[in-house]
């Protein structure tokens, strides 16, 4: 299906036959051979393929493995949560997938494109057209209004100013901020800023939304609303969501949960499995019982 070896070579060019790629390169993958995960992957197309990615930092002569041979496929339209304690490498993985940082080893493929092998100009275009970013710290441009912030990715993509303004207004209305179009970030609450960020991430109709602890700076109730908005809007549009979190409430909306620990994939669970294995999760994380997992049970 992808046949341009002349350009950027993609040894693991995305294929619907997930089984092949599993055999080829996923030696560290804990899901290897697990029937329910293979079943889950059936008929799904791979949007992001993380192939044996490592990222090491050199801190004062010592080598720190923030990511240690991580391999993972992300499927079109799924809501994937990356769980793990603080310092486990979630943000590092987020940066790798979003092309914000380059792997020390291995490649992240967005469809048929290896991010790190693209020229910088095309990297920018890929980020602009295909990926929406949501950060824990919102990262709105402080000197721009909510509306201008949402317009920015469209303008960077060459959109007409008037149309961009209209679309920004529509998106902001959808996240419930139609009365805050011309407010600057410092005039908005944290939850409102994150809503603007959600609207901005959807500005160019991306196929992937990356969220790094989007609720990390918000109180429980606001966090829940943000997660609901994010998952509702992405489901409507069929957007793939990859969200790093250590908040167990996020699990209730996730299709699949990847747990990482010390830079390695520790476990992969499907939504249906979550309540089956609830006992074991509870052992590790006592907080689960009163937070999100209960909702999963209903579904």
């Amino acid at each position, binding site marked *: 299906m992808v046949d341009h070896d002349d350009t950027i070579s993609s040894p693991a060019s995305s294929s619907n036959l997930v089984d092949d790629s599993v055999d080829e390169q996923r030696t560290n993958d804990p899901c290897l051979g697990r029937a329910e995960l293979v079943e889950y992957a059936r008929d799904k197309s791979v949007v992001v393929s993380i192939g044996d990615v490592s990222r090491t930092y050199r801190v004062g002569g010592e080598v720190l493995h923030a990511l240690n041979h991580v391999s993972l496929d992300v499927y079109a339209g799924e809501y994937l949560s990356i769980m793990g304690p603080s310092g486990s490498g979630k943000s590092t993985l987020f940066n790798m997938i979003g092309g914000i940082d380059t792997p020390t080893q291995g490649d992240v493929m967005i*469809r048929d494109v290896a991010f790190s092998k693209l020229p910088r100009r095309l990297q920018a275009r890929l980020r*602009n*057209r295909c990926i929406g970013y949501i950060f824990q710290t919102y990262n709105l441009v402080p000197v721009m209004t909510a509306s201008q912030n949402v317009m920015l990715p*469209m303008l960077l993509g*060459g959109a*007409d100013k008037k149309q961009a303004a209209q679309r920004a207004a529509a998106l902001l209305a959808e996240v419930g901020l139609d009365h805050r179009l011309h407010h600057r970030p410092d005039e908005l609450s944290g939850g409102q800023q994150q809503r603007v960020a959600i609207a901005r991430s959807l500005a160019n109709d991306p196929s992937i939304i990356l969220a790094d602890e989007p609720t990390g700076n918000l109180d429980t109730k606001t966090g829940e609303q943000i997660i609901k908005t994010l998952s509702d809007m992405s489901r409507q549009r069929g957007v793939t969501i990859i969200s790093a979190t250590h908040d167990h409430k996020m699990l209730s909306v996730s299709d699949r949960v990847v747990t990482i620990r010390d830079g390695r994939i520790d476990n992969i669970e499907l939504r249906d499995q979550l309540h089956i294995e609830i006992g074991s999760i509870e052992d590790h994380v006592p907080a689960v019982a009163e937070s999100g997992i209960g909702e999963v049970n209903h579904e």
Partner: protein
Amino acid sequence: MNEPVPLNSGPLLQQLQDDTSGLSNRMLLSLAMAGLRVRLLRSAVTILSVVLAIAFLTYMGIAGSIERNVASSVVELERTFASNSDGDRNTSGTSSVTGALNDARVKHLNHEQAQDDANRMRFLLRRNGTSVETALSGSSTNTWLITMALLTCTVGVWNAMLMSVTERFREIGTMKCLGAVDSMVIKLFLFESAFQGLVGAIAGVILGLVVALTAAVLQFERFGWTRFPVDQLGKVVCMALIVGALLAVIGAAYPAFIAARMKPVDALRTEE
């Protein structure tokens, strides 16, 4: 509206290569202007450093010219005075062939006037701590002073630019995540700095002229007006504007380049 690229249809790479739409220069300019307007205080500080540099440059240029004009007037007047007395005695040169009595009286009046002016100007020059000879020789201390002041100002402008870029690293990182290409970041800062440089230079020229003129009138009385170097004005103003814009652009170029080349992750990691 730019078409979203559906990842599921066909080779993404091809689509990325084909879709070349991007931020227009006009939009970039309006982004830069909006940024300047919002960061008024910060840009005012940067502009102020350019204003001072250019005002100084203009002042030195104009003030030096006035001094030189006054000095050469002295020489000129004294030469006419000398040649007139000569001409009266022997050659009665071509100009005074038709010289009537009236002419001679006028000449005599002018002659006295010229002598008074020359003496007055000599005195004023001396009062300002210089002399006809020094002023005419185009003292090297001035050039030295101007060079030093310009260097200092360049460093000042550079510092202001560096600050304004580094405090926006995070914003730049965010913009890169949203799809800003390197050249856009560079252009944004160069637009901003060129604009600041021009505004600063225009204000600086005006300030420099006002100060130079006031000082000239205080130092050389009416001669400050009459010996004003109108012919030099255009040259000095043009040079000041060019130097002002260059100062700002050169000051911004390096930090802008650094910011543009930065990996998004490094830009994002910096504190707001």
